[in-house]
Each structure stands twice: as C-alpha cells, then as structure tokens.
C-alpha cells in the first residue's frame, strides 16, 4: 500500500476545495471563454479593431501599470512604516511623541482596509466631491482627466501591497539584520541583501493583485470618469455597454482579452520575481 495514500480527512478536504473552486472560479471562467469562442475569431477581431474599445483597453492597461508601480513604492513604504520605523528610545518630550506615533500606527492599520469595505460606488462619489469641480482641495481632476482614473484605481488597490508585505516584515527576524550589522554591513546593504529578498515575493504578489484589480475596476469609475471615448473610457465601462446592448458575444470576447492580459501580467510578474530573487 502506498504510504502517500490520501486518508479520509485529506480526501474530503481536497474534494471540498476543488469543488468550491470549480463552482466559483473554473466554471464561470470556462463559460466566458466558451461564450467568446462561440462568436468565432471574427468577434475578437471586431472588438479589437473598434477604435473606441482598443483605446479603452490601452488606457486601462496603462493606468493599471501606473497604479501598480505606485502601489509597489507607496504600499511597501506604508507597510515598512507600520511595522518597522519606530522612533529610537528616548526620554521626556520625545516619549510623548513615541506614544502618539503608536496611536497613529494603530489607526492607520485599521483604516487601511476601508477601501475594501467601502462600496466602490460610494468611493466614487466621495472622490468626486474631493477631486471634482467642487473640490475643496482645488484639485479639479474628475471627471474629465485621466488623473481621476488613477485616483480611483489607487484608492481601491491601496491595501494589496500593504497587506501582503506587512506580515512578512513582521515575521522577519531582526536578529539577522543585527548580525549583519555587527559584521559591518551598512544599512543599504542590509536592506538590499536581507530585507528585500525576504519581502520581494510579497511585493510581487501584491503587485499582481493590484494590477488585476485595477484592470477590472468599475464601480468607482462610474462617477469619477467622464467615459469620453478614446480619452477616459475604461474597459469595464465598454464591457457594461456591450452587455446593455445585448451584445454578449463582444462582451465575452472583451472579457477573455482582459483575462489574457491579467494572466500575462501575473506570469510576467512571477518570472520577474524569480529572476530578481535569483540575482538579488
């Protein structure tokens, strides 16, 4: 008898996991692709040669890339600030500062997930009032500029990198860094040789999530973007238009293209991560 035979518990667990995964993910994805294939290759051609749709696709990919780069930088920084950058032990007045900093960190830590919890249409409304024609900040970006799209995507994708990097930083043993320091490594060397290799997979994981999420964002853009063809219209809005026109073949084709883009990005990010990890 094979030693690795599944016992009843694991068999059941695997069954439930695969069943659930199939019902929720595999079946719908397969249905989209089957539907798109039903329209034939000509539907894909039609969708891609339509200037309005092509521009929407390019704009969405461009904005998602920008927002992902932004998240990699800012998200990692926020995670670092949340976990690491505590003021040095001091006395007197600085003590109070340290206490205050602690409170702020707890607050930020709590608030950072709000973009997940807030219905995106509400996010769109709030961002419109802050960055729209009545902006109290004097930033009249929405709804006619592409900056508004960037703001919306940045808002909904902020937590991804922060939340993937944060636990890794927390687990990272300070002893290793101290050992490196005692052996004469500078701060930069420690960052490059010890911290970065450890958090890199997390950064890349967060980046692919944030890219995929940006690609598909719809709710907040409904109000925040002007949806002007060629300029501020995103793929999700085009998709919605196809569905409203009962053109499900084009909708499925565009959705499939979007899936392929997302998949390609995930693969590229994964390959990049392995490369960087190897040559770190």
């Amino acid at each position, binding site marked *: 008898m094979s030693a690795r035979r599944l016992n009843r518990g694991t068999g059941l667990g695997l069954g439930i996991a695969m069943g659930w995964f199939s019902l929720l993910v595999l079946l719908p994805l397969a249905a989209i692709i089957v539907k798109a294939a039903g329209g034939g290759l000509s539907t894909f051609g039609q969708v891609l040669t339509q200037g309005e749709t092509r521009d929407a696709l390019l704009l969405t990919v461009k904005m998602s890339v920008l927002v992902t780069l932004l998240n990699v930088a800012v998200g990692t920084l926020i995670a670092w600030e949340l976990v690491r950058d505590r003021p040095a032990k001091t006395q007197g007045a600085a003590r109070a500062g340290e206490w205050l900093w602690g409170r702020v960190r707890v607050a930020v830590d709590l608030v950072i997930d709000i973009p997940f919890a807030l219905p995106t249409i509400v996010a769109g409304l709030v961002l419109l009032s802050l960055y*729209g024609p*009545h902006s109290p900040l004097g930033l009249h970006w929405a709804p*006619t500029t592409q900056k508004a799209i960037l703001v919306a995507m940045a808002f909904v994708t902020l937590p991804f990198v922060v939340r993937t990097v944060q636990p890794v930083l927390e687990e990272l043993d300070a002893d290793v860094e101290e050992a490196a320091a005692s052996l004469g490594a500078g701060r930069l060397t420690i960052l490059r040789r010890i911290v970065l290799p450890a958090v890199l997979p997390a950064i890349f994981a967060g980046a692919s999530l944030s890219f995929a999420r940006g690609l598909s964002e719809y709710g907040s853009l409904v109000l925040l973007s002007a949806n002007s063809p060629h300029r501020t219209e995103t793929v999700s809005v085009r998709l919605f*238009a196809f569905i*409203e026109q009962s053109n499900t073949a084009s909708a499925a084709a565009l959705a499939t293209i979007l899936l392929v883009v997302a998949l390609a990005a995930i693969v590229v990010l994964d390959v990049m991560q392995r490369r960087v990890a190897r040559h770190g």
Partner: protein
Amino acid sequence: MKSIKVTAALVAVGVLALAGCGSSSSGASSSGTLNVVGFSVLEQANQKVFQAFEKTSAGKGWKIQGAYGASGTERDAVLGGQPADEAQLSLAPDVAKLAGAGQVAATWADNATHGICTDSVVVFGVQPGNPKSIETWDDLLEPGVKIVTPDPGSSGSAKWNLLAAYGAYRQETGSAAGAEADMKKFIANVVTWPSSGRDATTAFENGTGDVLLSYENEVILARQSGQKLDYVDPSTSLLIENPCAVTKDAPKTAADLLDFQKSVEGQKLYVETGFRPLPGVDVGQVTVTGANDPSSPFPAIAHLQTIDKDFGGWDLADAKYFDETNGILTKLKAADSK
C-alpha cells in the same frame, strides 16, 4: 449518518418551499403575489400605485412586489429567468426583446395606449439659478458649455436624450445633414457620459457640467427629494413613452394592474412624481411639488416630437442612429476626440 438525514430533510424542505413560491405566482387564484420588474425611476410612484391597486376589488388579496434597475439590466434579468408578471421598461425595444423571446405576447402593443404606461419629455437640467442662461438647444452648442448626458451605449434611456437633440436640430436646420453638423458640436460639448440617468444626475449635482439632459419626471423627482438643480422645458422636445406589458404566464390580475396603471387614478399617482399623464387621460388639477410651477406643472411644448411620427418608430430609429457600428450617432460619438 444522522447528519446526512438532517441535511436531506433540510434540502427537501428547501425544495418544497421553492416549489411553493413558484406555484403562488402562476395559476388563476384570487390571491397571491405579483412580481413587477421596472426601470429605476418608477419605484417611488409604483409603491403608491401598488398600494392603491391592492385596495381595489381586482387587487384585493394580492401583494405586488417590485424589482427595479436600469431598463436594459431588468430586461436581461427577465430574459435570464427572474420571475415577472409585468415588465415596465424605459424603451419599447426592451419589451420587444421579451416578446421576441416568447415571454411577452407579440401583440403587447396592440391596445389603446400602444403599450405605453407613462409619459415624460426631455428637459434641460441646469445648475441652481441657471448661471449660464441655458434656454434653447442652440445654447447647448455655444463653445465652453458643458453637457452631461448618460451614455446611449450603456443606458438605453439615454437614447431619448440624443434623439431629442437630433430632432430639435433637424427641425431648426431643416435637414438631416444640418442636424448631424449640430450633433457633432453637441457631442464635442459633452463632458461626461455616465452609465445611467441616475449617475448623470449625481455627477451633475456634484458640479459636473452646465446642463444635464434628463427626463422631466427624473428632474422633478430629484427636486422632490431635495436635490439642488433647476430645469428648463425647451420649446422643442421629444415625448418619452415608457412601455409596459404583462408576461404570458401571468395571472389575470396582472392585466388588471396594467389597466389600473393606465386609469385616471393610476395616472394621477404617476403624475404626482413628475410623469406627464397619458394622452386622453384627464387627471384634473394635480399639484406636483418639485415642478417649476407646482400648480401648472407641465407647460405645453411648442414642438413636441414623437418617436413614431418623427423617427419612424424604435425599430428604425435604433438601427439608424444607434447601431453599434453604423449608427449615425454612434459614429459621431466614436469620432469625437477632444
């Protein structure tokens, strides 16, 4: 083993409950639930209409349940199997699609109102006090005027707006070519194409644009709920006609409800939320809060165009102006690059 039995029992109960729900909405009983699927703006008016209907002899014992959303979305929901005894949609083509799928009788429009339940007209929503003094369709073409109108691609009801504009410019210039030239300028002035009428109103209220193309009833309802915007009835406009039909399997009471909605009593309730009464239905003196003049809420429109008289009906208009690749207005919109 015991847990399996419990699960089986629960499943059985669930199936029975579902079957129970299914049977209550069909069949010719004298009580039950009617499901009405409608486009969003109807919700407020329908609540009152349903309550009033439940008090009539035909509606006694019935509970009317409404589900609301964008017209195209609700159409697809019904096509996808959402239970519906009556569909009240924004555009006739949406009901025609239900008829095409066999869910509504092909003769749905063969009645005194041609299958229409509610009427309205296209108006200009303007920022409080009308700072840009927008009164006519020509004012919309001035350089620098910012127009907000929902996207006809994603919101079927936005087609009313664009056709109203097209019709007005065709009347002024006297030719289709003149109308197209003006529509080009018009589209160049559109600053945002929200996905639905409601989103357009929200964007406008938040300061986007100088003029909002909207439906008179939508603006009046927005003002009734305290939103701050004014509106102007232009001297040329398009009559908005929203269709309604019962589904094939609906109990007879659904047809009674439809008749009630078109009756004086039903129309009066729709008028109170800003719809214009159906032609030939005299609702008498109704005060409409939110209208520019609540005691005389619906000024006559000097040149009121209709989809049948001026655009050859929806089948023709849809193909000619809004076809996804060759529609005149679709192409003008796609060609606009600011």
